[in-house]
């Protein structure tokens, strides 16, 4: 993103980060299978916001309650809420989420990323783009777009 353009949402509301997940005894037991659960997916989604030096969790764009995963059926659904209804970053954020999940989940998973209903002006269009595999792949061929996505996904310590 070129510096110098004005930020869309200059004063976002910041939410508190949830603490680190506590380890339980079964997680240390070698013989027990830990199914993939919502919290795990939510922890994967520690993605930076494209505009602010904050994470999507801190901006409440992603919330654990809007993450639904079913390990047995290999499906995962993530709803994200752009901070303002005309946010032009919505597609980018959605794309980052989708890419992060593609990189972090086994291939068997079917990934569905969409905007929380009622929270964005052009949610239908964005959802459609995110659901289309070819469009996503094509977007990632675009090196400047890939650059922005990678910056969002890089593990910058804030």
């Amino acid at each position, binding site marked *: 993103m070129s510096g110098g353009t004005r930020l869309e949402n200059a004063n976002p509301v910041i939410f508190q980060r949830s603490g680190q997940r*506590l*380890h*339980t005894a*079964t*997680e*240390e037991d*070698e013989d027990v*299978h*830990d199914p*993939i*659960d919502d*919290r*795990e997916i939510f*922890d*994967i989604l520690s993605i930076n916001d494209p505009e602010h030096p904050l994470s999507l969790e801190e901006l409440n764009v992603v919330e654990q309650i809007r993450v639904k995963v079913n390990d047995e059926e290999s499906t995962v659904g993530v709803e994200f809420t752009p901070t303002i209804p005309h946010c032009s970053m919505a597609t980018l954020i959605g794309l980052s989420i989708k890419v*992060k999940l593609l*990189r*972090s*989940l*086994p*291939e*068997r998973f079917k990934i569905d990323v969409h905007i929380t209903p009622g929270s964005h002006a052009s949610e239908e269009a964005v959802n459609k783009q995110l659901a289309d595999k070819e469009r996503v792949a094509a977007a990632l061929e675009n*090196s*400047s777009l*890939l*650059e*922005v*996505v*990678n*910056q969002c*996904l*890089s*593990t910058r310590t804030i």
Partner: protein
Amino acid sequence: MLSLVEEYVSGLQDSKAKDTAKGVKDGEFTVLQLVEALGLSLTSSQPHTRARGVQLLSEVLQECYGGLTEREVEVLIAFYENRLKDHYVITPPVLQGLRALTKCTALPPGSAVSMLRSLFQDVHVQVRLAFVKQNCVFLCDSFTELKGLGADFVFGFVQSMDGERDPRNLLLAFQIAKSIVHRGYDLGKFTEELFEVTSCYFPIDFSPPPNDPHGITREELILTLRDVLAGTPQFAEFLLPLIIEKLDSDVQSAKLDSLQTLTACVSQYEHKDLAEFLEGLWASLRREVFQTSSEKIESAGLAALTALTSCLSRSVLNSDSEDSLCIFLDLVLKDCKHHLCEPDLKLVWPSAKLLQAACSASNRAIIVFIYHFNIMSAEWNTMNKPDKPFPLPCSDPMDQDNNREASEQQSHHALRQRCLSALAAVSIQPSVVQESTPVLLEVLSSAHTVSLICFSQNIVRAFFMRFVWFPFWVFHVSRLAEKTASRAVSLFLDGDVSFLPDNSFPSDIQLLKQKGDSWSQSQMVCLLMGCVCSLPRSVEVPQMDQLLLQLEELSCTCSHPPSYTSAAKCFAGLVNKRAPGQFVCTLLLVFRVYSVLDSESSSVRTQAFTLMIWVRVMLFSRGSLYDCQNLFSLLDDADLGPMAADGFSLLMSDSSDVLNRSCHADVRIMYRQRFFSENSAKLVQGFNAAPQEKKPNYLKALSNIVNKLPKQVQVTELPALLSLLLEALSCPDQGVQLSTLSCLEPVLIDPPAALIQQLEALVNRLLALTSSRAMNVRIVSLRCIHAVSRFPVLPFRARVLRALARPLDDKKRLVRDEAVQARSEWFLLGSPGGS
């Protein structure tokens, strides 16, 4: 009949009612006929006449309700309900009649509901309450359909109770509310209302007037109200903030009431009801105990804390939930720790009491507490306060333990072990030792199993090791120590039991010999070890030569591993403190041991090896040469190879129970780097020359040695051993893999040039390890792959990304976490916007 009616109604002759009733009973006329006869009076324009009419009917019903048919009852109820809408003068007899009807067995279904509904609708509050008062027991017990009324009934009740001030009525109202709550009525959306209408009286502030004829006491009211408020978890979200608020008040009785109510209510609650209020409750409880001026309040507060903790301990966890018990105890410990460690001591005792209350709640609480306690005691010890008594909450659970059933042995055994270790750790100050001694001695005397014995020897050691801390003790201690030493030696060598208090020992006790297969006596040698090896050097151990001989004999011949190991350690510990000139016997011993080791057919090779290793450890600690040729040669040995590899670990590490500074042993600084540099070449040589099946021993020895080196040394020495380490990564032994990975990991932060040249081999090996069967190996290898991503590894990117797809679906979450991080990092390699 008509005349009777007339006389009653107009003539106001009450006695006629009885006659009428008798008439009905005798069958002269039915009740319905009576109603017809009353028709005139019931429709009179004078309310009083109507009242009389109804009253006659009611009184008859009171006598005759048993004989009514269902049809009659139905009609009568309808009539009476209708009459409720009439003039208020009529209401009392109507209620009287209804009351009589409620006793009928032939009540049609739904009558209770309709009765109550009209009651609540049409009847004035005070009157209603009086009616309910007379019938409450019946209402609550027999009207099963009341539950069907559900929320309506609750609402009606709430309305009728609102604003009540008469203590008699209040008592009654509380009792009804308690019935409602306890019988699990569906409170529906009126939960909060019911709570509010009862809780506005909390805390009760009532002084009965003098000469009160009804004898209602304040305690009665308090207790009944408490039963209501604490009766159901549905009130939790309202009750807990109320309690926190009332605890703030200045009135002592209010505080006391709140605390007692809290204790009562948490016995019904689950952890989820309490979760959001834990901090507030803890803050209030803490304040009450810290700032209390009254003992009553303090003890009520502590009781509340215990109840709270046991409620949280009862909660059943699923794997995702956060453990509220841990969270709460963390809160408690954090605050109390802070006060215990402060230089200003005034809050120590209250903190200790709080801790004691919390951890006496349940076994789970004790376990959590002890984990923290060990850390805490270490910090506490640095402060050196000899004159302050330290509270020992641990001793309480151990006393309780003696009352447990045998079925709980397993878990309570583990619990005792933990209590004991905590106690041993704390037994540093003499005043503490004074208090902990009786408990520990009791444990020792009741100890039966081997593990408990060996555990106990740690405690014995703890006693003797710590006496050095106070100079003024030394004089007394050395006398004490000498006495102890001579007694112990005479006990073990000569079987002299005369000084022991209990006289039930067998007369020919021989603790340093193994009797056949039984090891119950020979295992006592670990107690001897704890005792004599920890003595100050100024104390002379009598009959040293003979003792050493016996110990050597025991350690070479006994078949019980803990016994011969303890004997070996004891031997080494004793020899260590001797002057060098007295080493002659040791050398003889060494020859003997080696001859046993050399003969492969001997049955006691393991024992001989153990003795040798400990002697070697002892020699190292005194700074003798670091020559290990024979140990290296043993790496090739068929039986002893793995043990030899582990022996290196022993050589390189500090032993905790013998041969260290706190045991007053003669210890020089171990130049591990020197050891390493003198012997690494031999190790590599040996490895290269060894046959394939012996190579793992060398690798294990190598990783044991390298692991114990200081970090800087590891980094500088590693390049020489790199190829060996890479070899170690493909060794099938998981222990070797894990230790190699753990010493590789820090090196990867700042890799030597040699490593860069071997990147492909490294990456291949690491990838292979990500599918190991051991979880830890998978985790560490993934972390190493993550770390490797910072090197020039771009050519491997595609392959690694493919290979890392598999661990993403690993069955363990911890492994998956590492895989996600590693793979994300590798994706960013060489990609625009990435690293």
